[in-house]
């Protein structure tokens, strides 16, 4: 099992979710993060104070998948999130040792979906 963490532009979530659905991947977890990457943010100005805005709003998408879904998932995220502009984000893949469904107590591959 693999665990994917993707950092994407905040406004690409709908596209990413749509692309994932096409691959039959429906279960995800999303959260707000701030990121500093290569993208240069717009400087923010507050009276005398100029914030060079090193941190930009991003979304973090987390998906646990069985091994055979890894690449379809990665491709789907890439498809949905890519605009070709700097700041599109990154995908990180981890090995997932164990997965449990709290409701039923099931574990392993069967618990992922």
């Amino acid at each position, binding site marked *: 099992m693999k665990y994917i963490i993707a950092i994407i532009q905040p406004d690409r979530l*709908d596209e990413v979710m749509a692309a994932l659905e096409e691959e039959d991947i429906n279960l995800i977890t999303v959260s*707000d993060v701030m990121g500093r990457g290569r993208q240069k*943010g*717009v400087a*923010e100005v507050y009276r005398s104070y100029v914030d060079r805005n090193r*941190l930009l709003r991003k979304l973090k998408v987390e998906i646990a998948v069985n091994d055979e879904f890894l690449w379809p998932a990665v491709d789907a995220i890439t498809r949905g999130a890519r605009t070709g502009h700097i700041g599109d984000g990154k995908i990180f893949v981890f090995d997932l040792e164990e997965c449990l469904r709290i409701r039923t107590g099931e574990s392993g591959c069967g618990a992922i979906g």
Partner: protein
Amino acid sequence: MAGIDTGDTAWMIVATALVMLMTPGLAFFYGGLVRRKNVLSVMMQCFMLLGVMSIQWVLFGYSLAFGPDQGGVIGDFSWAALAGVGQEPNADYAATIPHQLFMLFQMMFAVLTPALIVGAFAERMKFSAFLIFSVLWATVVYDPMAHWVWGVGGWLRELGALDFAGGTVVHINAGMAALAAALVIGKRKGHPDISPPHNLPFAILGAALLWFGWFGFNAGSALGANGLSVSAFLATQLGAAAAAVAWAVVEWIKGRRPTALGTISGAVAGLVAITPAAGFVTPLGALGIGALAGLVCYLSVVVVKGKLGYDDSLDAFGVHGVGGMLGALLTGLWATATVNPGGADGLFHGNAALLLWQFVALLVCAAYSFVLSYGLLKLVDRTLGLRVSEDKENIGLDLTQHSESAYTLVG
């Protein structure tokens, strides 16, 4: 000072302050409904109008709208920079309060009206384009129409159509301009799958301030502290109440839940619809107008808009345009001279003519506003460009137009 009544003056000072508060109220009503990345842009637009329109009004707007009449269509420049507009009353407009106070009361309307349009093009218009458009629109559309309806010698004022507190000049006018704007600027990216309101309590706060301020708007339009202003106050409260309840009930009946957004939208729709009627109808008439406003604006916003498919982001047309037109027509039904001898009877009180005049006034004003607004928007679009780039729309107007974020995320 000769002729000044301290009670009337006291009330009208307060009414003016109340109407001023409606613009920030609108900023929160609209601001709460947009996405987090655009909230400041909407509030900034409202606040900027509070600045720019006050200046325009004093420099020449008031003179164009209320100054000595030129052929029934516009005022001249003789009151520019408030020449001759002093502390003495002007009996043509309001005999018991300083002329400057009448001018100030009207100023707040002139500030609020262009701010209403913001709802249609929210989340995608360039700030510069917004500014230019607003000043042009105020001068070319608002000021003349205010003259027609309210100015001494204005042709609609002579005609006999009734508009107590500005249903035509403010709401139909802004509503039609909003429709034009939604058509010219086009849909937001992603429409109709736009994320939900980012902060509904802000929208509720805005609605509360609007309701509160509307007492100044409507009851202030009696221009004094008297029975008529109280009657207008009562109609205002009942119009808002009935429409809020009506919208929520319709939602419930249609198998959904009654929503907070629906309730406050209904309240605003009721306030809009009661505006032309406030000084002419009985309490029961006000309840009727309110209930119909809730129902009709619900249909226009939830059912019709969905079908037509333009993107009036915050329903400036659906609520102010539709509600304003409805109110104008219903005034033609429910008006009665028993409430206000200065008014007239409507259809329900045996006078069909009024409905006709209401209809004519509505049509002329709606057409004038739509056509000129459309033209102005196209003009600005061709020259300066109305819309931000797609990239900027993605990032959000707060950052790209104002270099600010509304909230910090971490820390």
